[in-house]
Structures are given as structure tokens and as C-alpha cells.
């Protein structure tokens, strides 16, 4: 292949970088030592980091798309986390998208074909687009596949007789991209459409404004000697013609907004804007027809353009945020594996499960609905529901709430309640109720604006009447001048432009602001309440300490033996040991036996070992353990038939950045609290470690809600940072709430902001950004008030001529916008 010689330098750079042994050829992540995933690309062996990347790269090469690796200009997304990239099997859950009722939700018929829009993740460069379109074009039955790079959407048309959506999704997974159907009726599509219309309106307003300025400029600079009346009249008529599209088409949002707010008997900011535009336009038109008096066409078009610009900026920020949010909520329907009478299994949507059905829950999966455990005991992780961090054992016959995660072996569950009545749904309803009681800051802002607008309208009316007495000929122009010069351009730009710039800056830092009031409320917050599990802590058990109890054993050896015994286990504690021992060479284990709820026994290099609870190991080791240090966390013991060998302390690790985030909030004068469903002991210990004074453990979702509402009733403004489903209600009740991006999808829906990066420091960054945003807003408002305070009386007294007021208005707006844009540059992360 000589094609690479003619490629741009950046492409060659990736090629040579990928050839280095240390990084994965496919995704560029470091290749772990002692792994041997290889793929042969164009006569060269390339190293890969994981089976996922290997399978994806192999599929790409085998399909004849090896050119992809030569033309790409950045590494591919890692396939480590893409389920279904290994093997040719279509993941069962994807088949749910084939069901007719599901297809009706996202696809529509186009003749004999179906068409739908899919959202694709992991697009990095042009080569990805090429790969995706070529791969799909080869699937039988796909009529058209076109990728929109900007929105990461795939438009697909297929023949339902020849192919199913699940095959398309599986085909994409095999080459390393996760995709899911987009619901066209959802908000994102509406945003897209309104964005297109607004873009047109901005463009047309801008075009008209520029041309009208051209006609206006000579009028400002000339007097009766240099420009004759006919020419001036022609210029006015030309201005009038070109102002028409701006007023009739571009200004629609203001007229519609003003009409809507009048209909609901409120005075929004749109009312004086619409009135100003209408009055100035009508007044100028009358002047043009009568050929006397001033015209304001240039000012009219400029208002429309500048105001639309700020709206467009705001919309772009909002769309960016909603796109990122959609990526978080995987549209995968919750599914379950139902056992049929003849012993077969089928995948069904969780919503279709009936009371009495038996479902099989594989290790690591969540229980889709409430039910009773059948046949064997199970270990369940309830941390999402209760905050309890340690997995618990449940015996057959005991009930398990939906949303719990199966942390042990596969379990059989008899459904007791369908999804609609389940614990999860009850929590959701609790969240909805809490949401209704939420204080509405937005209403307050609207009220202030309404008063300002009312005062402005009354002033304009007063000025009009006063000038009618003094000099009736000037009454109309002066009243327009008051509306025009005070047109709340700077005022209405002051807040939204700052919020848009701040939101945009935060999205780039991995914080997704969903509700517009987040920055304002967070700045006022007096209490910052954290959840523990998954928020202040990582949410997964990590090996904290390993004390060796036998003199002739090294720490490494103990870990090796423990990892060998636990190698096949899916228990979270076992995973912690395996992660800790992942750098050490593995040992062979034979005669492995599992004792439910107690531990494991196995033979390593001819010696029998036991790992598990103290009693369980003591039964083999014989003599009781002398000193059992009372450490926190869960202890796992290792022993053989003659001695105790080691004690591992495993517990949920505190996030590394948690302490600094807590300290910064405390330094900023906010009260930091910890509310958790975990036991008081665990909670107090973490609180002491992080320097949090107020920490309450054993809190049910209802307790948390009451606690927050109690604080609020005493005048506190509460910011809540949470993670699990059990937090959904309290997140909604708090004045402002954050959800960790890795948390349950449900909590994100109810949170005002989502920490997509999964880093707790995002909360502090948002608070910092909020502080600076409020500063910029107050600067902007101060400037706008000062300007209005000077300009309105000047206009009312008839001192302002049109070009001066137009210049002042645009300079003031530009100043406000530039000030807001300072926020887009965030200081470097510390």
C-alpha cells in the first residue's frame, strides 16, 4: 500500500503512533502488560488493549475496511465498554427494538421502506463517517444510511422485509459504535426545528439591518444642502421596504411572546420590545408616507437583529446541553429474561411483565421489577435504593425490590408486582410530589421584569402626553425615542447572555446544566448536602488494607492466592481483590467450592485455602485469631489448614477530590452536610475523614426529603448532590441539585445539573462559575441601569437625536455581550 504517502501529516502521525507497542492500535489507550491481543493490519501485527478493541479491529480488517486505519486522523473510541462488540451474536436486549410497538415509537413508514433517526456515539473523525456509511450500505435491506456529523445523527432507511433495526445496531457495535434510536417527537427534534427557524430569522434580520444602515448613514451625515428631498425620500422608501421582512418575519418571536404574555395577563420583557418595534415602525412608516419627521428604520432592524442574536446564543447553549443529556439517558428499554413453561427463556420489556411471571436475573444485572426470590439465595446490592453500601444476602422467599442489582450468582425471581406498581415507580411518584413544592425563583424574576416594563410603558405614555402639551409635533417621535432608547436590549441581554456563556463553558468541563436557574440558586445556597455512596465515595468497594497474619508470607503472595480463589466470583468484594491483584501473575486453583454467604475454598499448589468470613476460615485454620483489630469496612480473611494468613480490609473508597471540594465550600461559608442511607458508623467515619460536621446515617428517602424540607422551612437554600434512585425525591425537593453522571438514569432526570465527567470537583467548578456569572450579571445590570437612567430622561426631554440613541444602544449591548463572553474562558483546572 502506497496510499499513505499522499496522506496529510496528521494521518501519518497517528499511524506511526499506533505502531508503538505501548498504546492500543485501535483506541490509543495504554496496552496493559501481559496481555496479548493482536490484529494483523496490512502485513503488520498490531497490539490492542482489550478483547473489545480486538474484536472491533478484526471485524474492520476482515470486512475489507482496513483503509480506515490509514485515513483516520484521531484514535477510535475504545471498545472496552461497548457490550456486544465481541462475537457475532446480536445482544438479546437489542431485539426489543424490533418489536412492532417499539418501532412505531421511533420509526415511520416511507413507502415500502421504514425510516428512522439513530444517535451514534464515538464519532471522532471523517474516517468514522466513512466506516459507518460503508458498513451499513453492505447490510442487506439498508436502502440509505447518511450520517450528520454535527449532530451525530444517523438517518437510516431500510426494508423491513430484509432487515431489522437490531441488525443495524449490532452491525454498528461490531465496528465499535454504540447507537440507539432517537425519538423524533422528543424535545431535541423540536429544538432542532425551532433552531432552524431562528437561524433564518437572525440571518434575514442581519441582512436587512446592514442594508438599512447603508441608507441611514447618508441621512445622518448630510443636511438640506448636500442631499435633496427626492433622494432622502427614496432612501426612506428603500429602508421601509427592507425593514418589512425584518419586522414581519424576523420579529415574530417578540410579537408572539408579547401576545402570549398578554393573554396570560402578565407583562413580560417581550411586551415593550414588541411595542417599541411596532411603534417605531408605524411611526417611521407614517413619516415616510407624509415625508416629514424622523425615521427609525435603522434602529428597528438593529434591535431585532441584536435581540435575536442573544436568543440564538441561548438556544445553541440549550441545544448543546440537551444533546449531551440525551446521550446520558440510554434509550434502551428496561428488559427482563422471562422463563417460559417449557424451560426456554425470552427477552421481554420490563413493562410487560405480569404478576406471577418468573424471571432470571443474571449476575450484575438489575432486578427489573419487585418480586420474591425463588430456589436459591442471592446477594443483592441495594445501594441504589437505600444507600446501604454493602451487598446483602437474601434467602429464598424473601422479597427483593426492583432496581436492586444482583451481586452474586444468577437468581430466579417471581414477579409480585408489575412495573407500574413497583417500588421504583413509588419512588418516582414521591419525586413528582416533591417537585410541585419547589420554590420558583423564575417567577420572582418575571415579576421584577413586569414591574420594570409597566413603569417604562407608563413613562412613555406620560412623556407622550407631556409633549402633546408642550409641542404636539414632537410628541410621537419623543415617545418612540423613550421606548427605543430604553428598549431593554442591554437589560434583556444582561442575564441570558451570561447564563448561556457560563452554561457553554461548564458543558466543556463536563458539567451539564439542565435547568436555567442552577447558577443563580447555587450562588445563593446556604447548605450543600451530599449523599455518601457513589457521591463522596467511588461507590465500589476497594481494597484499603492488607494485613499479613503469618510471618512466612508476603503481601503479594497473599493477594495472589486470594485473587486465584476469587477469580470466578462476581461478588463485589471479590472484584475489589481482583482489581488489587491485577498486576500480579495469576495462580491455578483446583477443587474450588463455594459456600453461600460464607466464602470460598480451593486448592492452590497442593495446599487447601479458605477465604471469607472469620468463622468460616476459623473452621479450617483451627485456633482462634488472637488479635482482631477493630477496623472499619468489611474484613475478608484468608487461611489454610494450619494458620491464619491474611486479613483484607475492603471498603468503599472516598473520592480523591472529595476532601478539597468539601473544604472549599466550607471556606466559602456554606454549611456542608452528609445525609446517607448507610449505617451511622460508616457515615460518621467518612464525615470525620472529610471534615464534615453534620452527618446523618440511616436515612430513608423519606427521611432525607423531610430533613431537606425542614432546612428549607428555616430559610435555608439547599443544594443537594446525589447519585442513586433513592435520591430522586430529595434531588427534586432541593433548591438546586446535582447528579453524578455515573449514577442511575432516574436521578439525572430529576437533577438540575448532571456531572457528566463523574468528577465531584464539577460541583465546585459550577459554584465558582456561578459566582463569577453572578458578578458579570450584576456588572451588566449595573451598566444597563446606569445607561437607562441617563438615556431615558435624555430621550424624554427630547435631547437625543436618532443616530445618537442608536449608537448608544448598540455600544451598550455590545459591551454587555463582550462582558458575558469573558465567562466562556474558564481558568485552568486546579
Amino acid at each position, binding site marked *: 500500500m502506497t*496510499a499513505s504517502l499522499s496522506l*496529510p501529516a496528521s494521518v501519518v502521525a497517528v499511524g506511526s503512533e499506533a505502531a508503538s507497542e505501548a498504546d492500543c492500535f485501535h483506541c490509543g489507550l495504554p496496552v496493559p502488560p501481559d496481555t496479548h491481543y493482536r490484529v494483523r493490519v496490512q502485513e503488520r501485527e498490531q497490539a490492542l488493549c482489550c478483547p473489545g478493541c480486538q474484536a472491533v479491529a478484526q471485524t474492520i480488517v476482515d*470486512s*475489507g*475496511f*482496513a*483503509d*480506515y486505519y490509514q*485515513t483516520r486522523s484521531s484514535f477510535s473510541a475504545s471498545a472496552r465498554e461497548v457490550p456486544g462488540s465481541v462475537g457475532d451474536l446480536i445482544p438479546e436486549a437489542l431485539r426489543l427494538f424490533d418489536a412492532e410497538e417499539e418501532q412505531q415509537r421511533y420509526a415511520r413508514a416511507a413507502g415500502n421502506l421504514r425510516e428512522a433517526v439513530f444517535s451514534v456515539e464515538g464519532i471522532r*473523525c*471523517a*474516517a468514522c*463517517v*466513512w466506516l459507518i456509511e*460503508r458498513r451499513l450500505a*453492505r447490510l442487506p435491506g439498508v436502502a440509505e444510511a447518511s*450520517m*450528520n*456529523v*454535527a*449532530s451525530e445523527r444517523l438517518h437510516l432507511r431500510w426494508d423491513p422485509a430484509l432487515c431489522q433495526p437490531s441488525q443495524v445496531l449490532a452491525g454498528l457495535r461490531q465496528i465499535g459504535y454504540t447507537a440507539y434510536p432517537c425519538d423524533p417527537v422528543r424535545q431535541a427534534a423540536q429544538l432542532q426545528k425551532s433552531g*432552524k427557524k431562528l*437561524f*433564518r430569522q437572525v*440571518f*434575514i434580520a442581519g*441582512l*436587512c439591518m446592514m*442594508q438599512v444602515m*447603508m*441608507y441611514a448613514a447618508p441621512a445622518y451625515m448630510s443636511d438640506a444642502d448636500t442631499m435633496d428631498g427626492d*433622494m432622502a425620500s*427614496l*432612501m426612506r422608501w*428603500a429602508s421601509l*421596504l*427592507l425593514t418589512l*421582512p425584518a419586522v414581519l418575519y424576523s420579529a415574530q418571536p417578540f410579537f408572539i411572546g408579547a401576545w402570549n404574555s398578554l393573554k396570560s395577563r402578565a407583562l413580560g420583557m417581550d411586551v415593550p420590545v414588541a411595542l417599541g418595534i411596532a411603534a417605531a415602525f408605524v411611526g417611521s412608516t407614517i413619516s415616510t408616507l407624509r415625508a416629514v419627521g424622523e425615521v427609525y428604520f435603522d434602529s428597528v432592524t438593529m434591535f431585532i437583529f441584536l435581540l435575536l442574536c442573544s436568543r440564538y446564543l441561548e438556544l445553541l447553549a440549550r441545544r448543546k446541553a440537551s444533546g449531551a443529556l440525551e446521550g446520558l439517558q440510554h434509550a434502551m428499554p428496561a428488559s427482563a429474561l422471562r422463563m417460559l413453561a417449557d424451560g426456554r427463556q425470552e427477552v421481554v420489556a420490563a413493562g410487560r411483565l405480569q404478576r406471577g411471571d418468573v424471571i432470571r436475573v443474571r449476575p450484575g444485572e438489575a432486578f427489573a421489577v419487585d418480586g420474591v426470590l425463588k430456589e436459591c439465595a442471592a446477594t443483592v446490592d441495594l445501594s441504589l435504593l437505600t444507600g446501604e453500601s454493602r451487598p446483602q444476602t437474601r434467602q429464598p422467599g424473601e422479597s427483593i425490590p426492583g432496581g436492586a442489582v444482583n451481586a452474586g450468582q444468577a437468581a430466579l425471581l417471581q414477579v409480585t408486582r408489575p412495573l407500574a406498581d413497583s417500588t421504583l415507580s413509588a419512588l418516582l411518584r414521591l419525586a413528582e410530589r416533591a417537585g410541585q413544592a419547589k420554590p420558583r425563583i423564575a417567577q420572582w424574576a418575571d415579576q421584577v421584569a413586569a414591574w420594570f416594563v409597566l413603569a417604562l410603558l407608563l413613562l412613555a405614555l406620560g412623556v407622550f402626553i407631556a409633549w402633546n402639551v408642550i409641542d404636539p409635533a414632537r410628541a410621537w417621535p419623543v415617545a418612540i425615542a423613550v421606548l427605543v432608547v430604553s428598549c431593554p436590549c442591554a437589560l434583556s441581554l444582561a442575564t441570558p447572555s451570561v447564563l448561556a456563556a457560563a452554561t457553554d463553558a461548564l458543558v466543556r468541563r463536563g458539567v451539564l446544566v439542565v435547568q436555567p436557574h442552577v447558577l443563580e440558586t447555587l450562588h445563593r445556597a446556604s447548605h450543600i448536602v451530599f449523599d455518601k455512596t457513589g457521591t463522596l465515595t467511588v461507590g465500589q468497594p476497594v481494597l484499603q488494607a492488607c494485613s499479613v497474619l503469618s510471618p512466612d508470607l508476603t503481601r503479594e503472595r497473599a493477594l495472589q492466592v486470594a485473587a486465584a480463589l476469587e477469580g470466578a466470583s462476581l461478588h463485589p468484594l471479590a472484584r475489589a481483590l481482583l482489581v488489587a491483584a491485577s498486576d500480579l501473575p495469576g495462580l491455578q486453583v483446583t477443587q474450588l467450592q463455594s459456600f453461600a454467604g460464607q466464602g470460598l475454598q480451593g486448592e492452590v499448589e497442593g495446599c487447601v485455602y479458605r477465604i471469607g468470613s472469620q468463622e468460616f476460615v476459623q473452621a479450617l485454620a483451627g485456633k482462634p485469631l488472637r488479635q482482631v483489630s477493630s477496623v472499619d469496612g468489611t474484613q475478608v480473611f484468608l487461611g489454610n489448614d494450619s494458620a491464619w494468613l491474611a486479613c483484607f480490609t475492603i471498603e468503599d473508597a472516598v473520592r480523591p477530590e472529595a476532601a478539597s471540594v468539601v473544604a472549599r465550600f466550607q471556606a466559602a461559608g456554606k454549611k456542608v452536610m452528609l445525609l446517607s442511607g448507610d449505617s451511622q458508623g460508616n457515615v460518621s467515619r467518612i464525615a470525620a475523614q472529610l471534615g464534615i460536621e453534620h452527618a446523618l446515617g440511616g436515612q430513608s428517602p423519606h427521611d432525607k426529603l423531610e430533613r431537606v424540607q425542614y432546612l428549607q422551612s428555616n430559610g435555608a437554600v439547599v443544594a443537594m448532590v446525589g447519585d442513586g434512585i433513592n435520591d430522586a425525591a430529595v434531588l427534586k425537593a432541593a433548591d438546586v441539585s446535582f447528579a453524578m453522571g455515573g449514577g442511575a438514569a432516574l436521578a439525572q432526570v430529576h437533577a438540575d445539573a448532571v456531572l457528566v465527567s463523574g468528577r465531584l470537583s464539577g460541583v465546585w467548578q459550577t459554584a465558582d462559575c456561578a459566582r463569577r456569572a453572578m458578578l458579570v450579571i450584576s456588572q451588566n445590570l449595573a451598566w444597563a441601569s446606569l445607561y437607562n437612567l441617563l438615556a431615558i430622561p435624555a430621550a424624554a426631554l427630547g435631547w437625543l437625536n436618532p443616530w445618537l440613541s442608536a449608537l448608544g444602544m448598540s455600544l451598550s449591548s455590545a459591551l454587555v455581550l463582550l462582558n458575558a463572553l469573558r465567562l466562556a474562558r474558564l481558568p485552568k483546572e486546579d
Partner: protein
Amino acid sequence: MEALYILIPVSVALVFLAVWIFLRATDTGQFDDLKGPGMRILQDDDRGTGRDNKET
């Protein structure tokens, strides 16, 4: 200066022409994807279309 009596109406007509062209361009989706076409132009259409021409 008399030229202006022709030039000003011409300029008005030109602006309306520009608006009409712009509306047509948005209707045909010219502004929908501002990134993709720039990327695609670097990809040759005549190679690597799949298994069939793997040998070439």
C-alpha cells in the same frame, strides 16, 4: 448623483434576491451539517468499498 436613483432600487432587489437564495439553501439542508462535507471530501470514493475489492 443621478446614478443613485437606479442603484438604490437595484440594491433593494439584490437584497431580496439574497434572501430568496438563502431561504432556498436552508430548505435544501445546506446548513444542516456544517462539519461533515468538509471531512468527507478527504475520503476517496473508489477504494475500500468492502470485501469485493480487498485484493486491489
